[in-house]
């Protein structure tokens, strides 16, 4: 379990501290997926950095399987358990070829070379980068770099995966593929914290947490959270397919709430 208990965090800044998180409590259990939504600047990426100890809370604590991230003795164990896909994939590139970049994590963990090769091949295949093994990461397109960052985290095979807007630069098919991968991992017991601006993607999670200016404003199942009146004032809006569903519902077609797929709309017809 990843547990945030009363976490407050602030960035020191010349004009005074920027408080990014205030008394945040939430958890992610093994095999559970939690989506995090919130306006720009609401603290989502900060939350991600705290989840694997890259940043430490000013107040409160973050526990990973019972280990306090602020306890220096656990730094390594926490990093192994919590894989992180950063919002900007460029900040994650460490090697000069695609293949070495994905191998870097497992190598650091001391995984056997034979196994590393397997994992790297599998991860690259999963994200659709097979064939680009020898390419230089900085010479990839934006979406290809984002897929590379995801492959790097997959190859670590972590107990928990924290993904900060992992599909922001992907085409719709790529986005659907990544969501499929996350579903599979969850079924295998991986705990997932998925930061996104897409309500349709969050609708697939077990639970949704909405951040507002560093505080947890809403939390619950997708159906509960998406029914909240306050959604739009929190900077969230239903995707166009949701608007379509709402309009149909208003016209008397029994479309279920949080119906953010074409299938669920047609089903209701």
């Amino acid at each position: 379990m990843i547990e945030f208990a009363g976490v407050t965090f602030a960035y020191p800044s010349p004009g005074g501290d920027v408080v990014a998180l205030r008394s945040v409590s939430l958890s992610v259990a093994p095999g559970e997926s939690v989506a995090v939504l919130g306006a720009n600047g609401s603290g989502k990426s900060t939350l991600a950095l705290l989840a694997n100890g890259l940043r430490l809370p000013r107040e409160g604590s973050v526990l990973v399987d019972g280990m306090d991230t602020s306890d220096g003795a656990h730094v390594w164990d926490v990093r192994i358990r919590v894989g992180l896909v950063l919002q900007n994939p460029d900040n994650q590139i460490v090697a000069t070829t695609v293949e070495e970049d994905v191998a870097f994590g497992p190598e650091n963990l001391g995984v056997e070379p034979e196994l590393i090769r397997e994992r790297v091949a599998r991860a690259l295949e999963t994200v659709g980068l097979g064939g680009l093994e020898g390419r230089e990461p900085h010479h990839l397109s934006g979406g290809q770099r984002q897929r590379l960052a995801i492959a790097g985290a997959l190859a670590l095979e972590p107990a928990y995966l924290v993904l900060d807007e992992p599909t922001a630069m992907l085409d719709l098919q790529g986005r659907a593929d990544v969501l499929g991968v996350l579903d599979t991992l969850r079924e295998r017991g991986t705990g997932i914290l998925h930061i996104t601006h897409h309500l349709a993607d969050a609708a697939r999670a077990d639970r949704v947490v909405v951040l507002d200016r560093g505080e947890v404003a809403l939390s619950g199942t997708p159906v509960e959270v998406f029914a909240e009146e306050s959604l739009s004032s929190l900077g969230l809006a239903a995707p166009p397919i949701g608007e379509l569903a709402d309009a149909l519902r208003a016209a008397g077609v029994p479309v279920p709430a949080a119906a953010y797929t074409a299938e669920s709309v047609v089903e209701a017809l």
Partner: protein
Amino acid sequence: MSLGFSDVGYIYGDGTAYATRALGGVTLELPRTGLTLVLGATGSGKSTLLRLAAGLLLPTTGSLTYDGAPVTGPLATAARPVGLVFQSPETQLFAETVIEDVAFAPRNRGRAASESRAAAERALRTVGLDPASFADRSPFSLSGGEARRVAIAGVLAMEPATLLFDEPTAGLDASGRRAVREVVASARRDAGVVVVTHDAEEFLGVADRAVLLKDGAVTFDGPAATLVGEPDRFAEAGLRMPEVLRAQVLAREAGFPVERFSADPAEAAALLGDARGASR
């Protein structure tokens, strides 16, 4: 016509062992005003197309003209400036403070400091950032969406005659996406605007024209309305259809007499409602 691509090809690392063909045989004409959407799968050549249009890359084969003259270098300082908002905004920000970053273009064009600052503050407000909170922040200590907004503001402050946006809504929240849609919808009245996006749904309703790229080649170039009416074009370009269109296509496949397709959610709902009524 402002930008003209004539049989343009681009190869990264041409002549080296790492040569990668990004575009081939692209012929396009971008008008002086109006909104053109460029859609395509990951790696299809969209960002390369925009870098060429901004004069940041020069064609490997074929030729490119701007206002009738051959393009030989960056167009940011042309008489009719071309502004490009990069896919990764971080690569675009450079100054010590947000306000200096956004005021750079007007300063560079010789505008007075106070006038430049006013223009920059206006641009920041347009993208939903309050100058009072953001002007003096470092552009490198922002959240992802805040950084994209600053990058967009910096290009708006250039007052470009041609505006190129590479994934302008990626990483933006609902209000940020709305702001970008409004910027684009108003800019296209007197500027040529090109938007590269995976978020076709966000712009299909306001676009004049759509271009689909697949593996560096154009597979569709026509009115956005035509693309909406022929959604098979998406699959042809290796793309998944936007969800609103997919709902209408699935409904028709399921036997509902869907008369025509619409990219607008409200109109699509009306069309689906009618189809449901007719099939009862």
